[in-house]
């Protein structure tokens, strides 16, 4: 089996730019969820989220005509490629997998709002060119000189994790020695309004796995990793943060928005990832949970973990309690968090967790990060449409 390592990391998160900034925020347990400013929240139940600060966004390069999501993606991707120290030749043979949902919707919404409200043609029609999620991949591949297979994966909140799973397959198939993989989503009005309409947003910062949790908090960001065939990385003197050992991808085929109550689909994804990694449940010391904070998701995910690992047999925590649910970016942000957890031997906490739900029979590392020696970790991502993706990383 071809071994695939993570050789570069790049992040733009509500903490700011850079994987180091992201890790510092996670390790500190500081919650980045606060009142939203990027979109109008007047009249909605929940008015909070985790957005990339305006000054950080302004620092992301000169092209302000580019969609907000494209700018997030470009900054994170550039950092990952620079971190991996790839030559132009290496870049030219790199595949590109982008998990995306909203595309350039934020700018297209503004155009549509204006035309509808005024009844007159808006000059902002150019925003439509960047509305599709696939625009991110076009922008990245052109600007960064990536000539390998290119794919835009839309798998709702599992998109970012799926980009890594498919990148792993690509490298193992021999079609490319390396790939830039990750996800991106900017805040959009449609997303904010939709989750409000579904009453899935907490009025306070989300509290995954808490007995009194009320829902999720939305967020935005981008995270990319360079996946690379281990021998290729070694031969060029690259650094391996961790190894992506296996991935599981399944579908509930049960309901569009609700997870399958028995957790069967999640269990199959987790077990599939473990099998692909050649690992047993006992090898996993920590699970970076999907952990949205909605009553239903957390309960079913806990059930899945209990079925695979046994109650209390593994540590888990939720990155979303710190940086919100960043939609298509979540799976890749959490992949980066998992890799850095392995590297630092420090498990980031679940913020805002006061009393753990009795239906969640696990130590969810409340409030404060914990030092733990780890050999392998699991990262879960689940999404609308019953999409389940699990990734296993090892040292």
């Amino acid at each position, binding site marked *: 089996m071809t071994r695939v390592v993570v050789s570069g990391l790049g992040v733009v998160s509500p903490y700011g730019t850079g994987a180091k900034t992201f890790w510092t925020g996670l390790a500190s347990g500081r919650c980045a969820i606060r009142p939203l400013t990027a979109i109008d929240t007047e009249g909605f139940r929940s008015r909070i989220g985790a957005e990339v600060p305006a000054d950080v966004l302004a620092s992301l390069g000169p092209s302000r005509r580019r969609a907000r999501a494209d700018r997030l993606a470009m900054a994170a991707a550039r950092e990952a490629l620079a971190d991996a120290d790839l030559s132009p030749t290496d870049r030219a043979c790199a595949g590109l997998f982008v998990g*995306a949902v909203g595309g350039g919707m934020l700018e297209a919404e503004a155009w549509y709002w204006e035309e*509808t409200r005024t009844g007159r043609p808006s000059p902002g029609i150019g925003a439509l060119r960047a509305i599709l999620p696939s625009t991110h991949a*076009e*922008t990245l591949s*052109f600007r960064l000189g*990536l000539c*390998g297979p290119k794919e835009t994966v839309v798998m709702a909140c599992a998109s970012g994790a799926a980009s890594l799973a498919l990148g792993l397959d690509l490298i193992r198939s021999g079609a490319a020695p390396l790939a830039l993989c990750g996800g991106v989503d900017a805040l959009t009005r449609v997303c904010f*309004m939709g989750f409000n309409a579904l009453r899935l947003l907490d009025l306070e910062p989300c509290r995954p796995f808490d007995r009194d949790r009320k829902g999720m908090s939305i967020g935005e960001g981008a995270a990319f990793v360079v996946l690379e065939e281990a021998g290729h990385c070694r031969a060029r003197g690259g650094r391996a943060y961790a190894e992506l050992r296996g991935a599981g991808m399944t579908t509930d*085929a049960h309901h569009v928005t609700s997870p399958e109550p028995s957790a069967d689909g999640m269990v199959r994804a987790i077990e599939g990832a473990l099998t692909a990694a050649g690992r047993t449940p006992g090898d996993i010391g920590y699970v970076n949970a999907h952990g949205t904070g909605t009553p239903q998701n957390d309960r079913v995910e806990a059930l899945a973990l209990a079925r695979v690992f046994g109650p209390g047999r593994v540590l888990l925590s939720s990155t979303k309690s710190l940086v919100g649910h960043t939609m298509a970016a979540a799976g890749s942000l959490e992949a980066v968090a998992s890799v850095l957890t392995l590297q630092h031997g420090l498990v980031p906490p679940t913020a805002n967790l006061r009393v753990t739900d009795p239906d969640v029979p696990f130590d969810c590392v409340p409030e404060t990060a914990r030092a733990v020696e780890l050999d392998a970790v699991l990262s879960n991502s689940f999404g609308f449409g019953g*999409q389940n993706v699990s990734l296993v990383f090892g040292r």
Partner: protein
Amino acid sequence: MSASRRVAVTGMGSVSAGGIGGTAVVARILADAASPIRPVRAFETAGWPSRLGAEVDDAALEGLLDPAAARRLSRICRLTVAACRLAVEDSGVPRGPALGLVVGTEHGDFRSSEEFVTGYLKRGPSGLSPMIFPNTVMNSMAAVAAIEIGARGPSVTVNQATVAGDLAVARAAALVRDGRALAVVAGGVDEMVAHVYRRLSEMGMLSPAAGHGREGCRPYEPDHNGVVLGEGATFLVLEDLESARARGAVIHAEIRSAAWGNVPVAPHTAPRRRRDLRSPALRALVSAGVAPSAVGTCYGSGNGDPALDDWELGLLAADRLPAPRSLASRFGQHGGLGALRVAAALDCLNKAALSPTTLVMVHGLARGGCRTALLIDRAA
């Protein structure tokens, strides 16, 4: 994962402007020279630069879907579910964890996004429908289709202009080859929506671009002057060859290799003279162990977009591949077209007086540089 499984095509289902059905119906539609492209009936085009399209007759969907279930689905989800169901029935592939699904789409469920937003703009937060919101996510078609056909393996939605269906079939072939699923239902879907049609028309993407010449879809022709939109869903069943044989499935063809790549050009552009140094078409041939001369027929993604047509002709010529045929003039540009081209390739292999060693290539190229190649062979 087991390495390098062989990939068979064991069924298909199509809901297009040409007709609705499985393998036999698709073969009949492909043999029919008449194009269903005509003036759009679903919405008013008066005053817009373009007026033609290839529309699906919704009445023909009746009987394919349970009426109560169909009422809960958006139109593009109905198209997807109907085509996937036809494909699964055509193939007889079993439901379950070994069955995956890949949906390619250019625009997704734009109609639902517009409806969702319009509710808010008219009535504020109280006008937002929690029932419509999930449809605004582009994987909603895959979500409902997976439930319908019992696909509990990987379910992937790929977003890509022009070659969404080609990419979906290539992705599915990789999922089978890499052992992620024993079978995958794969293809593409799009629907015509007034807002998208009008804006593309105003942006000069549709024939007659900039008002030059007569309106129509004429891929690779000297007077091509833009795209004509179509709509519909076409899905194939791709299956591990040995599994398909073991269950006694009818094997229509084998996908000898599938490759895709990227020519790094600016988003939405098609620079006619730009060469491809990592041609996926050549990689597909190398992977299959054959020379370009083994390709007797090539189906291309030419859709009447002058720059894109010319670019594709240049790239294929550089790879010493035959001049391509297009189906866009028959069905209009939409996400299902890639799977229809694979169906045409199957038909070509079965009917044409080609040498037994001759293969068919299904080639795709999009503005922005995404390029795909599927090498289709007779079932061994």
